[in-house]
């Protein structure tokens, strides 16, 4: 019995590869890609006060390894846009009269605005900057300025955690779950759908009829789009009434964009089903796709905490972008203009998969 199992296992190359491959991927992803203490977070600095103090502050932020200063916006509006788009995680705002007030001992405010949709992405960085405030300016406060040295601190740090001010993890997780569930079910169901026809022999019958391949694929997709929407509605209802997630943005906008994401996942499933020889393989391929989607998309762990190579892979996956879209719309109240940059990667991915699927789909049994 055991030796028969081993023989069969060896014959089914794909299954065998998956059995080795999936644990390897898990090992690599969990071992190397995941880091719950994200550093080098993109930060915008808006300094309305050009002084030695503000320059020292910027320098200290850079040195902390938590903040990468990537943008220097010119006004408050730009800051809000960058946060909404998610192009920066933080924005540091040094007010106009920062140095004047500082010298007068008036403890000016230093404003730190954070995109706190994912509380775990910003927590460490905020504590790092907090500990900075005590000592950062000591070097500049010498001689007669010595009296301004702490304590109390020469300035006050004010943090504005935007979008999720109470750091409620569910606010981030529950809307994201929509993407995760869609990825899981849509890919799996369609991967099975065509493979099942082939395995049961009904494909031969279908192919002997004049049915057009487009009809077969469309016929496989349309019912599942409906299923996908049912899931989306359930999650939206749960978000609102069960978890009390604040729904800031436009639900109709979200619903229309969900279609793009569902299509992308169905296309992956169809592509898999043209490759898989049996249903087991189809399930394994779906899992093979699901795993990195779950781990590298920023759903389980902060996207920016991952090494660059993992982020690159993550950027290819539709879930990564869809999470930004859902969270953007629901939590940030984003409109089309802020999320456009996450739409085209999903569309591109979907197109690629459809092309592969069509290329692989055979109208004959060859």
């Amino acid at each position, binding site marked *: 019995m055991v030796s028969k199992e081993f023989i069969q296992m060896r014959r089914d190359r794909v299954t065998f590869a998956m059995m080795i491959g999936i644990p390897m991927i898990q090992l690599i992803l969990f071992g190397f890609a995941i880091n719950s203490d994200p550093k080098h977070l993109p930060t915008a600095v808006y300094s309305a006060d050009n002084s030695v103090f503000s320059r020292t502050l910027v320098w200290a932020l850079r040195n902390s390894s938590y903040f990468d200063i990537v943008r220097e916006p010119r006004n408050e509006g730009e800051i809000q846009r960058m946060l909404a788009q998610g192009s920066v995680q933080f924005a540091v705002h040094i007010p106009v009269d920062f140095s004047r007030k500082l010298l007068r001992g008036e403890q000016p405010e230093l404003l730190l605005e954070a995109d706190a949709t994912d509380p775990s992405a910003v927590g460490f960085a905020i504590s790092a900057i907090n500990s900075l405030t005590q000592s950062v300016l000591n070097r500049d406060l010498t001689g007669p300025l010595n009296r301004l040295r702490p304590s109390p601190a020469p300035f006050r740090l004010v943090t504005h955690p935007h979008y999720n001010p109470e750091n409620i993890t569910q606010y981030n997780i529950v809307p994201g779950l929509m993407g995760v569930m869609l990825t899981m079910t849509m890919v799996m169901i369609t991967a099975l759908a065509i493979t099942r026809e082939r395995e049961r022999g*009904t494909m031969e019958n279908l192919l002997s*009829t*004049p049915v057009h391949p487009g009809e077969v694929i469309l016929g496989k997709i349309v019912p599942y789009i409906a299923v996908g929407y049912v899931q989306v509605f359930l999650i939206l209802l749960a978000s609102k009434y069960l978890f009390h997630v604040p729904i800031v943005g436009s639900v109709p906008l979200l619903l229309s964009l969900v279609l793009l994401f569902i299509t992308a996942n169905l296309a992956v499933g169809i592509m898999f089903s043209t490759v898989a020889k049996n249903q087991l393989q189809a399930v394994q391929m779906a899992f093979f796709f699901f795993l990195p989607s779950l781990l590298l998309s920023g759903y389980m762990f902060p996207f920016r905490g991952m090494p660059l190579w993992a982020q690159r892979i993550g950027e290819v996956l539709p879930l990564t972008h869809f999470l930004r879209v859902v969270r953007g719309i629901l939590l940030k109240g984003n409109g089309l203009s802020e999320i456009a940059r996450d739409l085209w990667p999903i569309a591109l991915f979907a197109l690629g998969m459809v092309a592969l699927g069509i290329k692989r789909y055979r109208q004959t*049994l*060859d």
Partner: protein
Amino acid sequence: MDSPLVIDVEGISKRFGGRTVVDNIPMQVRRGEIYGFLGPNGSGKTTFLRMLCGLLIPDGGSGRCLGLDIRTEAAKIKKQVGYMTQRFSFYEDLTLEENLDFIARIYGVSRRKEAVEKSLERLGMTARRRQMAGSLSGGWKQRLALSACLIHEPQLLLLDEPTAGVDPKARREFWEQIHQLAASGLTALVTTHYMDEAERCHRLAYIAYGRLLARGTVGEVVAAGGLSTWQVAGPDLPALAEHLRALPAVEQVVAFGATLHVSGRDAARLRSSLMPVMTPGHRWEEIEPGLEDVFISLMDAAKDNFV
């Protein structure tokens, strides 16, 4: 005047991974004919049928089916052909009626409801219309498959071992129906392993190892085999068979029920070989060779030539 050719193939071939599975097999079938297609398992019958209806593309050769090119006009051929696959290939989790309705929709049958109703009735399946296809017995599955093939009123039926696993009564009914359909002008190409079914065909072809070994009416095939056959009945046949096989000019000794068929192609030498062993303990009789005798002899010859 002859009826027009429905299948007209000069010779098509198919290779799978370097192995030639169908080797330049020709076929001509006329309208209204029931054409038997015989050969051992793995000889390439299914592959040949699949090439006829566009499911596989021939690697070599070409031909016409219903006047259409099998390479380039597969889509048009599919509309007029009813193909019954060797393996049951309907949806086991749909009822009889749902399966028929689905197929009717795919073919774009006009007045679909009527067509479904008619084929349920014709096959005597009206009472079982709501039964799941998966729970049907072999005979009923075969009836469902046949009526699904017929629902779009095709010109040509390609039936791949339609009676495998079907009881004798259902087989007889099936053949009666095929003959009725043929009488109304439908053409049928049927693969089978049963000799009695082969004898019910107007003409037949016999293939092995992907090559055509014989074709024509039953009489022509038997005559072309050039075999003379003796039938022996009596005690201790297995021992006798052993003994007979060693004799010169005896090419095959095959057990048929309580008799042996002893055949060879050289009638005179066979007779002189057998004379000394024709003891009164056994009843000897020279008979017309049957299809099966001929096929076995063809197979043996083919094995020597091709393998």
